[in-house]
C-alpha cells in the first residue's frame, strides 16, 4: 500500500515542487492557503498535469514525465472528495453513489450502492436530491460516492471546511472510523492543524510550494525544524536568537537570556515557545532573581474565549501601548482568575524543555 509522489509544476507566480510518500496510514498535507496543497492533490488525481516528476500508486505508474506516461483521471481509480463535495445536483443520492458503477450489472451495482449507503448511514435518503440535504449529509454522500468505486487511494480536500463547527467533531469521528477500515492510501489536505493532527499519523507540511517538513506528527509538533513550520503548526511566540556558550541563547526580541535543552546542528536563528506552554504566576511565588527562565512581565492586552484567555505580555518593563508586547500566553480561566487582580509585574516562566530553536 503506497503512494509515491515527486512532482514539479510551474504556473505564473508559483512553483510547486513536492516529494512525499504515503503508506496505509492517513497522511496529512498541512499548509496555509496558497501553499500548493490543493494543486498537489489535483495532480495526483490527474486533473492537473505536472511539468516533471513521477506519481506511483501501489507500483502502478500514473505519471512519469520521462517515460511520457500520463494516465487520465478517469483511469486512475483515485477517489477525490472535493472541498464543496461536487455532488451532481440532478441526480438522487443513490444515483450519485452509483455514478462510477455504470459498467457493473444492475444487481451488483445495487448491492454496492446499498452497502455504501448503509456504511455512511444514509439509508433513508437514497431518493433525495443533494440540494435537500444538510452539509454533513452531503459530505457523507460525496464520501460514499468516492468509495463506491473501491479506489486505490482516497484524497480528501479540506473535507470539513464547508461545515458548521458543531457538525465537525461528529463527522470527523465518522471519517476516522471509516478511514480505519479503508484499505488504501489516504491523503488528507487541511489548513487546520488540530484537525490534521487528529485524523493523520504522519504529516507533510507545505510552505510556498515546497515540503517544509515531513514525518510522524508528534515529531513535527515537538521539534518544528524551521520558522515556517513552527508557524504552520500554530506556534505564536518567536524571537531572533544568538547562541551563547553553556547552553544558553540570547533572545534578542524579548530582551532576555534563556537556558535551552535542545541542541541544534546548525546555528539557531530563532527561539520559540507555544502560547499554551508559557506559564504566568503571581510574582511572589517565584524568585525572580535566581530562577532560570523566569522574568518579570506586564500585561499589554487580553482576549477571551469561553474557557481560556490569551494574554499579551511584555518582559522587563511596562508596555507603552496595547500592541507593545513580546509573547502571548494561553491560560485557563480559573488560573487567570487566581492572579488577575494581583499587582504587576507577574512572573513569566519559559520552561527549558518547552523552548525550541529554529532555522530560518
Amino acid at each position, binding site marked *: 500500500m503506497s503512494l509515491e509522489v515527486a512532482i514539479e509544476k510551474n504556473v505564473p507566480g508559483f512553483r510547486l515542487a513536492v516529494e512525499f510518500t504515503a503508506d496505509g496510514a492517513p497522511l496529512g498535507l498541512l499548509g496555509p492557503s496558497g501553499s500548493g496543497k490543493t494543486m498537489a492533490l489535483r495532480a495526483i*488525481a490527474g*486533473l492537473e498535469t505536472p511539468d516533471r516528476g513521477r506519481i506511483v500508486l501501489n507500483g502502478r505508474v500514473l505519471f512519469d514525465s520521462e517515460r511520457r506516461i500520463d494516465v*487520465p483521471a*478517469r483511469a486512475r481509480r483515485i*477517489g477525490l472528495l472535493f472541498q464543496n463535495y461536487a455532488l451532481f445536483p440532478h441526480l438522487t443520492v443513490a444515483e450519485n453513489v452509483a*455514478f*462510477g458503477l455504470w459498467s457493473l450489472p444492475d444487481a451488483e451495482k445495487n448491492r454496492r450502492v446499498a452497502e455504501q449507503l448503509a456504511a455512511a448511514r444514509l439509508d433513508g435518503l437514497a431518493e433525495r436530491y443533494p440540494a435537500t440535504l444538510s452539509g454533513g449529509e452531503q459530505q457523507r454522500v460525496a464520501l460514499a460516492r468516492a468509495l463506491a468505486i473501491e479506489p486505490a487511494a482516497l484524497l480528501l480536500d479540506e473535507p470539513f471546511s464547508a461545515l458548521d463547527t458543531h457538525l465537525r467533531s461528529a463527522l470527523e469521528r465518522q471519517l476516522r472510523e471509516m478511514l480505519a477500515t479503508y484499505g488504501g492510501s489516504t491523503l488528507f489536505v487541511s489548513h487546520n492543524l488540530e484537525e490534521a493532527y487528529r485524523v493523520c499519523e504522519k504529516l507533510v507540511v507545505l510552505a510556498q510550494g515546497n515540503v517544509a517538513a515531513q514525518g510522524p506528527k508528534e515529531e513535527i509538533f515537538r521539534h518544528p525544524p524551521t520558522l515556517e513550520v513552527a508557524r504552520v503548526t500554530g506556534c505564536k511566540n518567536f524571537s531572533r536568537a544568538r547562541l551563547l556558550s553553556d547552553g544558553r541563547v540570547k533572545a534578542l526580541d524579548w530582551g532576555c537570556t534563556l537556558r535551552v535543552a535542545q541542541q541544534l546542528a546548525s546555528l539557531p536563528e530563532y527561539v520559540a515557545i507555544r502560547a499554551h506552554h508559557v506559564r504566568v504566576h503571581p510574582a511572589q511565588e517565584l524568585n525572580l532573581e535566581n530562577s532560570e527562565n523566569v522574568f518579570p512581565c506586564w500585561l499589554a492586552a487580553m482576549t477571551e474565549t469561553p474557557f481560556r484567555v490569551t494574554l499579551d505580555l511584555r518582559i522587563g518593563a511596562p508596555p507603552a501601548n496595547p500592541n507593545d508586547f513580546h509573547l502571548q500566553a494561553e491560560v485557563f480561566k480559573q488560573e487567570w482568575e487566581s492572579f488577575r487582580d494581583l499587582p504587576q509585574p507577574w512572573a513569566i516562566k519559559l520552561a527549558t524543555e518547552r523552548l525550541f530553536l529554529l532555522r530560518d
Partner: protein
Amino acid sequence: MNWQAIALSLKLAVCVAGILLAAGLPIAYWVTFSRWRWKFLVEAVVALPLVLPPTVLGYYILVGLGPRHFAGRVWESWFGHTLPFTFGGLLVASVLYSLPFAVQPISAGFEGVDRRLIEASWTLGASRLATFFRVILPLSAAGAVTGIVLSFAHTIGEFGVVLMVGGNIPGVTRTVSIDIYDQVQAANYDAANRTALVLLLFSFLVLTAIYGTNRRTLSIWRRP
C-alpha cells in the same frame, strides 16, 4: 390565408432547429472547452451572422452555391441541380444564419456547469463523452432548449436571407414572412393582417410553452 406559406415556414424552422441541435452541441462544446489559442477566430466566424445584414450573408451564399463557384459545382455534380432557389438552398442559408442563435446559448449553458462536477465525473471513471451526456447536458438543458427555440423562432421570422437565396417561389421558397410582404405590396392588408396575426400568436405560444416547461423541469433540482 396562405396555408401553403405557413406550412413551408414551419417545415423550414423544424428542419433548421433539428440540424442546429445536432450541429450546435458539438460546436458549442468545442467553443466552450477547447484551449486552442486561435479559438477566438472560430468564435468570431460563428458570431458573424449576428452583425452581418442578411443581404450580405444571402449574397455570399447565393454566389458561393451558384453554378459559377466550386462549392456550387460540386453540389450540382452530386445532385444534378444548384442550391439557390430551392428548399435545400433555403435550408443551408437558414442554418448558417441561425447558427449563433443556437451555439451561443448552448455554450453559455455549458459554461454555467460547475467545473468541479465535470472533474468529479472524470475521477469516477467516466469518459469525456459519458461526462457530456450524464453531467454537462442534463445540467445545461436550459441553454440547449433556449438555443433550439431561438433558432426555430429566428428561422420563422427571417426575411432577407430567404429572399436573397430562395427567391419567391410558391410552395418551394415562399415563406410566411415573404408572403406577408407580397400581400402588403399588393395592398391586401386584410390577408397580410390575418397571416401576421397567426404568425404572432403561434410564435408566442411556442415560446411560452417551451420556456414554461423549461422552468418547471429545472426547478426539480434547484429546490433549496
